[in-house]
């Protein structure tokens, strides 16, 4: 017999009746509120949009209307309509500084009435183009998949689909998971020690794993079999892996870079499984390697330097010294496009190889081109509590120094649209920065223990962070506030990744279970 709910109490009934009787007062904007003079700036370039400021009545100044306006100013027709995120500088009540805030839906109530913004002055609105698709914030744990016998140290989604994820663990295996059904697909056995790094090739044909046993192994994700032999060469453990971007590969001959504690980076030919180049020059353990799309490899090391190498001959191009302590992590503005190559949000994959390369190149150039120039920016996070933003093609001077963290910065990432930088550190905070000039935007507070990793959603509207305090948190990049709190892990979260199609978030940590989160 089902339980019968008790009837509502008298107080509940009177409350409900009261609520029904009283009409909610509508927020009226007075007709004489005047007009705002708005000058739009493109956030990617920093250049003004249109000729001079535009007059907009206060009542009509909503983000929706501004979006139409900017699209009209840029001459986009309805088929190529792009959503925008608007921000404007507002003087802070408590401090003297000016903070950038999102353009509110009711600007009269939030900004004009409290006299924070006046209709007399020209307002400089910065417009950041957004992805035309939208990712919904993950909100629940779709599946908890046990299987690993030890802590999970690295996870990565397949570049093509959110249905496949690989995770590397301390039980000396990597595992491929079917995230739709929440079941294991393959166990990649072979390593004799912890698997520290996992990486899918951008065309999804191979998986590379780097381990504590000083080897790199390649696997076929379809069959779960190892390809060839273990690639030996390093004398200490492998810390990081990077595949050559699809558009710059020689067709069918992908290369792989592996960074190691033994201070070298080795570039392997994935087919022959031989060492093509050894990049030696660092004096300390290499913490991160990234393979850029413009013919450079970037390495960050514990010897406080970031080095830039030519990919074809392995010659050192630049050494970027500015950091005062270990460099922990690097991020490229084109990371997302390099990782996903020709896989885009539509899910359509070109048939022939030439078309794939063409599409990958097109996507890369679209992400990297700013004002007609191909610019690949680099940000390095360090133990000296700061980050530096670099433009390696323009020389060895940093573009900006990103100050604000109060402890070591562990992880840094660019948003897929290249407009934001998120950095997470041991001071329990995640900070958001403007990727163009390195200006501080906001701090995301909420975690109560070091934040280990963070990942942007592919549309750059959301950010997920994983922390030592056993939770994941999803943050909204428009309001810069907590969107969803995702408890569920029983212990520290070591690795988190957002799938390139935006459907799922995968995380793993010390509690040995892979968790898949989705909307």
């Amino acid at each position, binding site marked *: 017999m089902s339980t019968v709910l008790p009837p509502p109490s008298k107080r509940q009934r009177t409350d409900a009746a009261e609520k029904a009787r009283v009409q909610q007062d509508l927020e009226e904007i007075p007709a004489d509120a005047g007009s705002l003079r708005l000058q739009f700036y493109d956030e990617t370039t920093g250049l003004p949009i249109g000729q001079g400021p535009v007059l907009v009545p206060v009542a009509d100044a909503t983000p929706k209307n501004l979006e139409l306006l900017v699209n009209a100013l840029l001459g986009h027709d309805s088929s190529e309509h792009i959503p925008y995120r608007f921000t404007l500088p507002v003087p802070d009540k408590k401090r003297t500084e000016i903070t950038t805030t999102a353009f509110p839906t009711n600007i009269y109530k939030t900004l004009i009435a409290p006299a924070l913004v006046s209709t007399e002055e020209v307002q400089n609105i910065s417009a950041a183009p957004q992805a035309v698709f939208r990712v919904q914030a993950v909100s629940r744990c779709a599946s908890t998949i046990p299987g690993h016998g030890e802590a999970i140290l690295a996870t990565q989604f397949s570049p093509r689909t959110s249905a496949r994820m690989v995770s590397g663990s301390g039980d000396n295996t990597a595992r491929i998971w079917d995230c739709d059904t929440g079941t294991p697909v393959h166990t990649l056995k072979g390593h004799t020690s912890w698997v520290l790094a996992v990486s899918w090739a951008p065309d999804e044909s191979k998986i590379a794993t780097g381990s504590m046993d000083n080897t790199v192994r390649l696997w076929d994700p379809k069959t779960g079999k190892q390809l060839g032999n273990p690639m030996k060469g390093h004398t200490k453990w492998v810390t990081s892996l990077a595949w050559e971007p699809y558009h710059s590969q020689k067709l069918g001959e992908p290369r792989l870079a592996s960074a190691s504690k033994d201070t070298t980076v080795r570039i392997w030919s994935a087919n022959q499984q031989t060492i093509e180049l050894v990049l030696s020059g660092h004096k300390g353990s290499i913490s991160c390697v990234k393979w850029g799309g413009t013919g450079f490899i970037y390495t960050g090391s514990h010897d406080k330097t970031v080095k830039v190498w030519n990919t074809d001959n392995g010659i050192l191009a630049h050494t970027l010294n500015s950091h005062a302590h270990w460099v922990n992590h690097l991020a490229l503005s084109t990371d997302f496009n390099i990782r996903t190559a020709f896989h885009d949000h539509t899910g359509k994959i070109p048939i022939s190889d030439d078309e794939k390369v063409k599409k990958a190149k097109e996507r890369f150039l679209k992400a990297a081109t700013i004002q007609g120039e191909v610019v690949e920016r680099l940000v390095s996070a360090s133990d000296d509590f700061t980050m530096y933003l670099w433009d390696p093609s323009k020389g060895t001077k940093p573009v900006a120094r990103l100050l604000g963290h109060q402890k070591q910065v562990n992880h840094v990432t660019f948003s897929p649209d290249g407009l934001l930088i998120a950095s997470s550190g041991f001071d329990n905070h995640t900070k958001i920065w403007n990727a163009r000039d390195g200006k501080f935007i906001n701090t995301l507070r909420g975690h109560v223990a070091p934040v*280990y990793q963070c990942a942007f959603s592919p549309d750059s509207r959301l950010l997920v962070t994983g922390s030592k305090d056993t939770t994941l948190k999803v943050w909204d990049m428009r309001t810069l506030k907590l969107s969803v709190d995702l408890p569920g892990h029983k212990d520290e979260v*070591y*690795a988190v990744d957002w799938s390139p199609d935006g459907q799922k978030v995968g995380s793993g940590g010390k509690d040995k279970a892979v968790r898949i989160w989705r909307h």
Partner: protein
Amino acid sequence: MPQNEYMDRWRKLHGRRLDHEERTRKKAAREGHKASEDAQKLTGLRAKLYQKKRHHEKIQMKKQIKAHEERNVKSSAPNEPSTTPLPQYLLDRSNPTNAKALSSAIKNKRAEKAAKFSVPLPKVRGIAEEEMFKVVKTGKKTAKKGWKRMITKPTFVGPDFTRRPVKYERFIRPMGLRYKKAHVTHPELGVTVNLPIISVKKNPQNPMYTQLGVLTKGTIIEVNVSDLGLVTAGGKVVWGRWAQITNNCENDGCVNAVLLV
């Protein structure tokens, strides 16, 4: 000049006697024989003293041998820096003993139902009312009737406490014996942290002592663990956690407690 300095001077002037090396070698060689003879022949107090000295010598010897052995061990290059797997970015860091292990230990423990009622100090010494309270004999009426009591043990008094009018104040908790913080040890980690006390949960002596906030050995207190950064399974920050007092605070002048996990 003392004798030894004359001896030094003589040595500096004339050197050692010619058979010095031989004599010391022989003496060292006979040391074992001498020791064995002493061990067998000495009696009484001398024997006792000798055995004690020998015992200490042997301990030192064993320690030294052990140290040498450890030095000689050829270690196979430690492949993994720690036994628990760590991600790449935490590998070369010296990890401070983390209070995080706390919360997982607590979670594991909670699975056992019986553990709920077990505390580190299951038995306490009974404290009589005579020991706990001193009768206050000041003032004419108070002295005559003898109804006012001063608590002779340390107490915890909450921050929002205000004294009642003197007429109604039956128990006095002396300012000098009030405590706000406790040294709380985590039993598994062996870490001790000075944490603010939130409240007294249970004094095993008497429910009234609980009300009065008396801190005696075996009392369960609630401490503020928020700076340890513990998190519940639901992702909420743990604020208060219980601990049991392990020392006689009235004798020691501090409150030591052990966290209940």
